[in-house]
């Protein structure tokens, strides 16, 4: 799964704790990178949709928060593009199911 998908996910899936997102644990061993065409305007429009904190947990190369004028900062946008769209973690993200709730089947299991 790519970090973009992970970042946009929520847990309104039946059986998941409300409001409880889950951190993606990407193991460096099974990360693959595939180039995706870069579009500055697209990435700039994505930034406000992101949970920056969650992104930082997986990608330390990013600044603690986007600068106010990030829309014109191509170097920054390229970094975000790479992290969000080009890196794919092979590991299965593990949603932390709390309160003894077990979903009928892992709804997000096996992100590819």
């Amino acid at each position, binding site marked *: 799964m*790519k970090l973009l998908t992970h970042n946009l996910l*929520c847990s*309104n899936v039946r059986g998941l704790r409300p409001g409880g997102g889950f951190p993606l644990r990407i193991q460096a061993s099974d990360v693959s990178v*595939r180039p995706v065409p870069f579009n500055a305007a697209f990435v700039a429009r994505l930034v406000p949709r992101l949970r920056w904190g969650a992104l930082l947990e997986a990608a330390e190369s990013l600044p603690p928060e986007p600068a106010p004028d990030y829309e014109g900062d191509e170097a920054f946008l390229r970094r975000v593009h790479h992290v969000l769209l080009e890196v794919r973690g092979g590991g299965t993200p593990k949603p932390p199911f709390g309160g003894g709730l077990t979903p009928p089947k892992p*709804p997000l299991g096996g992100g590819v």
Partner: protein
Amino acid sequence: MAGSGRRPEHRGPPELFYDEAEARKYTQNSRVVEIQAQMSERAVELLGLPQDRPCLLLDVGCGSGLSGDYISEEGHYWIGMDISPAMLDVAVEREVEGDLLLADMGDGIPFRPGMFDGCISISAVQWLCNADKKSQSPPKRLYRFFSTLYTALARGSRAVLQLYPENSEQLELITAQAMRAGFTGGMVVDYPNSTKLCLFQTRAELAKFAFQGLGTECADGEEMHQAKFTNERTRFRNAKGKSVKKSRDWILEKKERRRRQGKEVRADTKYTGRKRRPRF
């Protein structure tokens, strides 16, 4: 082959029907590839996305990524979800540009509010009309699908679903659940002959759609590319969901059905279905 004439949805749950063999067969069949591309093209067109602005789209039931390929070609980005690991494996192998998520749409769309600029689904949603377990209720699953999809879409954006309903009751159920979930649009188009495309729109200040049963009207003024759309819809006006017998549309549809059954059919020309002079 036993049961080969039956609808795939009757042959078992999707994650079992789309096993490794089926997934391979699917992407290796050039006719399937072409048809899926055609329908994806139509669906993306109906999304009415702003010109020259790459968007983030959700592809529900993305399978091996044939529909997604078209999205990428158009310069948009996509995330696909599917219930079949075998289909997703083929997508990974094909190195599709979009991202993939293993999930059951009947459990809901697991994304935060307003994340997507649009949603397409090609040949998948009819699967929700079948209960694969006693505990599954198609109306509930459809409702969960639509209500969570509504949330995941940005304000004013659309979902275009191409589907193969088994009968008009299924189509009614699907549209009814979409309306209950808050979608304002609702549209059924016949394309390419005898497949169904539904267009749903989230509530927006500018929503110009009024849903009036199956033969919906497209109110004035949508953008240019909607004109074509309006023409296709007229086919539905006359008889509920069916073209008038012996009309050109009726003949074209019938020919298309025959073609899909693998029968030999004359090519469609401008003369197809034309009235003959009394003395020929």
